């Protein structure tokens, strides 16, 4: 029987990363990952983690057979708490640009493409952050309605493998 690493290499693995930091409006990605880590506990073939920078995903033994789901704060896509899912080539401005330094999300995804990893699927889920004017201050835990929308979006992707490879698929609102 293959060991965990061998099985992971053979069958592919799912990586779910929250992007951001532990403080400020940018913490939404980490809050989401922490909540999803608990909510999806026990699910096989899934790693949930937080990343300070998108390129840190390469610290994991990622392969071409794996799938990637990134959760990040976004701005300018709707009211605070809006959850939207994007294909990698359909990222609007303001998604993936809030938590990155050095190499941003778009550049990291270009490297992912060039290196041929995550061929089994990539999705980016954006969560609209509170406005700069201070409406809807960032909580230290994910609000229940937002958690519900996030769970719906994540499960829709997790349970439908292979649906997001087609380019130009655009985005879907949860």
């Amino acid at each position, binding site marked *: 029987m293959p060991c965990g690493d061998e099985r992971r290499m053979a069958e592919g693995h799912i990586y779910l990363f929250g992007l951001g*930091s*532990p*403080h400020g409006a940018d913490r939404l990605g980490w809050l989401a990952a922490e909540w999803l880590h608990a909510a999806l506990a026990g699910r096989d073939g899934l790693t949930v983690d937080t990343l*300070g*920078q998108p*390129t*840190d995903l*390469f*610290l994991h033994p990622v392969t071409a057979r794996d799938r990637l789901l990134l959760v990040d704060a976004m701005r300018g896509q709707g009211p605070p708490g809006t959850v939207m899912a994007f294909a990698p080539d359909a990222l609007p401005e303001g998604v993936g640009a809030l*938590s990155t*330094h*050095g*190499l941003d999300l778009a*550049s990291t995804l*270009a*490297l992912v*493409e*060039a*290196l*041929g990893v995550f061929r089994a699927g990539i999705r980016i889920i954006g969560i609209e952050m509170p406005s700069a004017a201070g409406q809807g201050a960032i909580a230290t835990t994910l609000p229940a309605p937002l958690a519900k929308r996030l769970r719906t979006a994540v499960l829709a992707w997790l349970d439908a493998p292979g649906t997001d490879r087609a380019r130009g698929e655009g985005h879907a609102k949860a």
Partner: protein
Amino acid sequence: MNDDKHTGRIHVPILARVEGEGALEVSIREGRLEDLKLRIFEPPRLFEKLLEGRSAQDVIDSVARICGICPVAYQMSAVAALEAILGITPSSWVARMRRVMYCGEWLQSHSLHIHLLAAPDFLGFDSAPAMATRHPDEVRRGLRLQGLGNAIIRTFGGRSVHPVGVCPGGFFRAPDASAMAALRARLEASRDESLALIDWVAGLPFPEDDQEFVSVSLRHERDYPITEGWIVSDRGLDIPIDDYEQHFREFQVPHSTALHALLDDRPYLVGPLARLNNNLDRLPAELRDRLEATGIRFPSRNMFHSIIARAVEMHLALNEALRLTEDYATTTAPHVEAVPRAGVGFGCTEAPRGILWHRYTLDARGLVESARIVPPTSQNQARMEEDLATALTRFGLERDDDALRLHGEMVIRNYDPCISCATHFLDFHALRG
């Protein structure tokens, strides 16, 4: 037209694969370089003025915001200057762990530059993703090493970008032993990778580009300089950091929002190549032997050997992080309390791009009365222009504009300039009637 009498202008409107916004303008008349300007047009950020009236902790957290690539360097130069005023001598534990945290920054910053910014130039690719299709293993190795650097910073600072763990007297909290053990295991597993990186980088095709320049860096009585030391040059300068302003002159030029700097009225180099040139004897013997085995001799006058210096420093940083945490024990007293007092203090550490010098004046409440920050990129600006003039002339001014443009960009990227860091100040004069 005779190629020897080439006349024209090369204009690179926006420099790619550097941090911040700058441009290059070159004028050639009858085959000779008539004018060359590295234009920095990113707006000034006025950080020094923003720090006035702030507390020591505010300074440490604020200066980290100057740069997303080297926030630790800013924090470490600042905290050294502030502790000098506050009369704090960090404990041995704090001094060692600050060096470890700084090693994380060297790892991530150098790896980013080597793999994603500079190596594509040497290998003839126009971008890192393009290079990744042909050199996937090397790029993935580089990304892993960069990620390890980020992991070190996050261990001490809570996050790798703009970390928040440093305070006067030490750290807010000490990493627990299990977190350190997990980090050490990852570092240990990458030791061979950072060693292999030196050989890979040394095998890149380097242009012949020996030049005369002055190497300026820190020097430490025992260690390869990172968090402390005095300032030296390979031309005999040997001064305490407090005397920086007596020897180095910063000034504004019309074409740049970042200040230029001269040492005894000459451009000078700071950064990995200058550091290695001045501190070969501070490398561990086995690393020095490994470097010698590459066949590339240091001290080097070839500016493009900076990338080798970065790879050597990455391995050094990884090994230092392991050495300094070998018998790691957490502490319940990661900092000593700071009592506000007035005074002037200086801090200078080796940022990935070179010496980063700070001076603060605090009042009796411990609030900043004045601040001065001299980042490495502004110190290298005059040297970059000098290098560009030499390198482009040697490359051949008769070459077509695209070739000159590409070579000019390669020369600039070789310094890993952080323009955003450099534009923190603007000399302002009001003319009043």
